[in-house]
């Protein structure tokens, strides 16, 4: 009689505990998805800004046929398609590497086009519109970094909750899997900087 009460109590506690754990893991996952959405929108912004910037360069200088412009546009387009419709749980190592590569290439192609254009047409340096778009492009870079750091932090929290004992037993039961983090951009430091 007594033993069955104790068993019942233990069972109730177990149920309560797993409910709590599920909720906290789920909160972690929602938080992570939201942070990922931020990352995504910042990448998107970068992809959208580059064509604007290119348009300004084209307007200010007769620069249309330049291959640099074409490359910048193509890379921006590639970034756009790399980042679109990717949810956080689709982020495999390969997908993340693809996004990072596309982003770095887009930024680098845009900078290259800017540098070449400014060299050919120094009057661009006085073009307010051109300078402003460039500020925005730089700002986007910073926002991407911040959003990615935030995402990584939320992933770290989530991973701790699903991999540490005893939560990991439940995580397996509920189907929570460890999430990958963003790595530092390879070769980000030798990307061409805008210079004038």
């Amino acid at each position, binding site marked *: 009689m007594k033993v069955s009460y104790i068993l019942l109590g233990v069972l109730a506690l177990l149920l309560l505990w797993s409910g709590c754990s599920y909720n906290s893991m789920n909160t972690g996952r929602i938080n992570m998805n939201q942070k990922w959405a*931020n990352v995504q929108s910042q990448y998107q912004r970068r992809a959208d800004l580059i064509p604007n910037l290119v348009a300004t360069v084209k307007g200010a200088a007769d620069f249309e046929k330049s291959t640099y412009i074409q490359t910048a546009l193509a890379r921006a387009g590639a970034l756009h398609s790399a980042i679109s419709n990717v949810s956080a749980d689709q982020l495999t190592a390969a997908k993340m590497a693809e996004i990072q590569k596309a982003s770095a290439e887009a930024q680098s192609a845009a900078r290259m086009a800017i540098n070449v254009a400014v060299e050919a047409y120094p009057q661009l340096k006085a073009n*307010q519109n051109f*300078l*402003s*778009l*460039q*500020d*925005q492009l*730089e*700002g*986007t*870079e*910073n*926002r*991407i*970094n*911040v*959003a990615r*750091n935030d995402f*990584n*932090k939320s992933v770290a*929290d989530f991973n*701790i909750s699903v991999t*540490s004992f005893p939560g990991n037993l439940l995580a397996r039961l509920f189907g929570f899997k460890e999430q990958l983090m963003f790595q530092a951009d390879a070769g980000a430091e030798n990307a061409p900087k805008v210079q004038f």
Partner: protein
Amino acid sequence: MMKTIKNGLRITGFAVLLLLMTGLRGFADDKDYPDRPNPPALVNDFAQILSQDQVLELENKLEDFARTTSNQITIVTMKNLGGHDVEEYSVEVFNRWGLGQSDKNNGVLLLVSMDDHKAWITVGKGLQGVLTDAQSGIIFRNELRPAFKAGDYYKGLYDATDAIIAITRGEYKADGLHRGEHDAPLTAIIIFIIFIIIIIRIIRGGGRGGGHYYSRGGWGSFFTGMFLGNMLGGWGGGDNDSGGWGGGDGGGFDGFGGGSTDGGGAGGSW
């Protein structure tokens, strides 16, 4: 038997604590970034490029603005950033200190690094609608850069903050902030007063006619008066200089409101 269980529990507890501690470990290196100033200040001239009078002048201007609009424009000057990028460093300082109000994110950080001739304006999300990256860039190029090139740091900081003030003035009102702060406790206090009055009534119900001096509404009105007094004091204080959260620090700047930034803003080298 009991003892082993106890020991087991103790060890588990310790392990959990250890786990928590490793989990809470920060990501960035703390010693690279300045601590939040105490007492709070909006002008933090760590590189010592300004005279004391100039610091005071800037501080007064920015404090006035913070009081009327709740926008917190903050200046930080550094000798160097220990190898960090100015953008990344600014975001870190911004979010560690919590510039702007937490519900509005209306802070602006103007950070300069003297050794590498870099300056960056970082804007909280709540002000990015008016103080865009493009606007920040224009302020940097038109106000800050020429003066810094000429070595007139005070003029650069003064003119740049003037421009930021002009652009962000219309965005928020301090009134809204303080009302918001006091609204919730007000209802709670009223409910509490009613509760106390009821309790007193019930207690006094038994001793009615006892003829105690205080019991003829004495304690009831005493408490009511006290709470009302506190409450009104809070209201009044909130709307003028000396109010705010800390209070009693001489009517200066109350402290950062816990805002954050997503990294927007602009800047460059001079």
